[in-house]
């Protein structure tokens, strides 16, 4: 959060191009402003310091008031939590190039179903988002789908090859705030140092997939007793920790902003904690699968559990949870990585890494962190919305929820149980590691600038009849 200062001036372009103001009734072409009140709802708004019951009035694309009055259509929201829409710093929407796995439209629909109003897709598309053209294409596709705001991440190096810097300036000019070769670590310390330095021009963020590749040659899973027993080549923790340590040292020396994605080991958490204490401008994220699942899952040899970084062991899971609890890890991000069934239903060593995450992140967080008391519900919302938005200079998301702010909101029932059914996913892919799990916490409504993208648990695309005032 502390690292977001001074960058705000660069942002509005991204927000405008990603998401033009779209009022509640824009789909119908009506000119009047709609009006709806969610009555008796628990408002959890970390940015505004609020956790309590209120009526929340939405007028057009904005929050009109948070208080006791009610106007327009009244929707009884007692028992529900109203929070700022969730913000995912790390997704793969696969378009352009991987449309068999996901499209911007399907991925943002899945995002909305999971309560997200903003997502940051990674650059490893085909072609790679290493120049402004691909960024603009993704922004246009997102604008057309209008299900979730999209803040594309640009590549650090051309073709993700780790050798030559991409044109960060051209991408920054169309609103990119964060650069990453995600999936491909920047191996060269020199290239990494130059990227961190060059990005300072825009006070932009460098996010490096931390994996020292000389240690992970044919790695298939976490290295340990489980990899011994299963006969799969191990991915040592040190491969992540060495590169995180290097990047933290480089970023500190330059005063540059660094973001550590998908933290998976206890030592990585400790390195980030120490760096923050020293004033390094670092933010970090952890995925629901890394704070929930372990390498024990791999015994099934079902590649749905194959992911990079790999599922670790219980002590790592606990350290990641502790890092979320004490704020060392700023954000919960999904690393939503769709793969079609024919790619996942292969031999373990031939299957690609990655798991779906958008539609289960909130419920897994509630089930695994809030209910056991690791995080309070406001802390969970801070990790899923407020802090990720701040850490990436995203305005209009993450709260506060107050008069005049954009109505980017999620309403969910934290006590409602549901069972994960991959067949019902809005993603084009089915590779969720939580299939069949019973989870607590179900999204009822998601609003993007006042328009329902999810209503009563059902997706609402802009073409659908969304005239809630007439309901």
């Amino acid at each position, binding site marked *: 959060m502390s690292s977001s200062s001074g960058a705000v001036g660069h942002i509005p372009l991204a927000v405008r191009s990603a998401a033009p103001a779209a009022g509640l009734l824009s789909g119908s072409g009506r000119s009047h402003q709609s009006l709806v009140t969610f009555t008796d709802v628990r408002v959890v708004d970390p940015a505004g310091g609020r956790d309590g019951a209120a009526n929340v009035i939405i007028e057009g694309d904005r929050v009109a008031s948070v208080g006791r009055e009610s106007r327009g259509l009244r929707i009884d929201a007692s028992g529900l939590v109203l929070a700022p829409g969730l913000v995912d710093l790390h997704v793969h929407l696969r378009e352009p190039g991987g449309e068999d796995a996901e499209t911007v439209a399907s991925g943002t629909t899945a995002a909305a179903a999971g309560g997200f109003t903003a997502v940051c897709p990674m650059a490893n598309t085909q072609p790679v988002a290493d120049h402004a053209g691909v960024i603009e294409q993704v922004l246009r596709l997102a604008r057309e789908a209008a299900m979730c705001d999209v803040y594309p991440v640009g590549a650090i190096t051309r073709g993700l090859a780790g050798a030559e810097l991409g044109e960060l300036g051209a991408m920054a000019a169309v609103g990119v705030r964060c650069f990453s070769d995600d999936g491909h670590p920047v191996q060269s310390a020199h290239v990494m140092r130059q990227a961190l330095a060059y990005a300072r021009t825009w006070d932009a963020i460098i996010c490096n997939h931390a994996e020292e590749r000389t240690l992970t040659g044919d790695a298939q899973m976490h290295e340990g007793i489980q990899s*011994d027993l299963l*006969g799969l080549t191990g991915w040592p923790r040190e491969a992540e920790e060495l590169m995180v340590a290097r990047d933290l040292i480089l970023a500190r020396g330059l005063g540059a902003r660094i973001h550590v994605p998908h933290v998976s080991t206890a030592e990585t958490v400790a390195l980030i904690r120490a760096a923050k204490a020293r004033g390094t401008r670092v933010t970090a994220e952890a995925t629901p699968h890394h704070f929930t699942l372990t390498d024990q899952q791999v015994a099934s*040899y079902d590649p749905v559990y194959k992911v990079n970084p790999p599922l670790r062991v219980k002590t790592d899971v606990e350290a990641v949870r502790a890092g979320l609890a004490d704020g060392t890890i700023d954000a919960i991000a999904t690393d939503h990585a769709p793969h079609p069934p024919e790619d996942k239903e292969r*031999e*373990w060593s*031939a299957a690609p890494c990655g798991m779906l995450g958008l539609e289960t992140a909130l419920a897994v967080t509630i089930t695994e962190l809030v209910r056991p008391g690791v995080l309070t519900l406001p802390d969970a919302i801070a990790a899923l919305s407020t802090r990720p938005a701040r850490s990436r200079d995203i305005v209009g998301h993450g709260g506060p929820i107050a008069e005049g702010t954009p109505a980017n909101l999620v309403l969910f029932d934290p006590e409602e149980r549901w069972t994960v059914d991959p067949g019902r996913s809005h993603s084009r892919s089915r590779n969720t590691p939580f299939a069949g799990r019973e989870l607590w916490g179900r999204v009822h409504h998601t609003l993007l600038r006042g328009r329902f993208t999810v209503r009563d648990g059902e997706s609402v695309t802009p073409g659908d009849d969304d005239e809630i005032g007439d309901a």
Partner: protein
Amino acid sequence: MMTQDQIALDERPAGAGLSHLLDVDALGADQITAILDAARTFQQLAARPIKKVPTLRGRTVCNLFFEDSTRTRVSFEIAAKRLSADVLNFSAKGSSVSKGESLKDTALTLQAMGVDAIVVRHHAAGAPHQLTRWVDAHVLNAGDGRHQHPTQALLDLFTIREHFGQLDGLHVAVIGDVLHSRVARSLVQGLRTMSAGVTVVGPPTLLPLAVGQWDVDVSHDLDPVLGKADVVYLLRVQHERMSEQFIPSVREYARLWGMDGRRLRRLSEHAVIMHPGPMNRGVELTADVADAPNALIARQVANGVAVRMSCLYLMLGGERA
């Protein structure tokens, strides 16, 4: 003249039936004993002029080999044929696999053809496990990546028991590239299940990182282990391990962890030498060790057929065809 064997074999020991044979870890001591006992019956059969019994008549066994292995495939083929099963050999080369067919589609094709058992050798660890999710046929793992090679371990246990009369209380030194060895994983588990002690020996680069949690003794030095070993089991060292910086040279490996005549003389009198083959003479062992009277290497190969017959029989025998 087969009548007696026929009667004995049709009375399959209760509870010893296997639905699949994927890894040795899943086998209890009584199951291993049942496999070894049945193998002894089949071994006697091999000494007779007519080596065939009708036990699996009408059943179809498919050898599905994604990795070249003439020795193991032939051993399985003989085993199935001596049990009168119909055998079909499906190798990845020149098949639909080389045209890009997935493992799952290959499995579903075999399923549709009504195969009763699939003997699978695959370069990917876990492939046999995955097959069990896709087909109803029994799956027998004939080696998957560096994961498991259960029939090799069982024939080794059979050979050791045949020689010593028991497994309980013996001490086995397993020497060499444990990290990359499916044989070592299977054998160590089988030995521990049968209450034999194990010391794994090799440089730390060739031992799994978590070997300390394996319920075995670990030594990086071979010489102190020699005196207490009843069995010295040498693993194959592949030459590419040098280029991958596991060992600096074959010469250095042979000097530090190879069995030669000098080390042979330091073994106790009753100790035996084993090797899963194929051997690298001059690396894991010198020629005089390989050909020493206490080397059981040829016995291992001979026992392979009987043990594989036993496994197929315990999976398929007695079921209604």
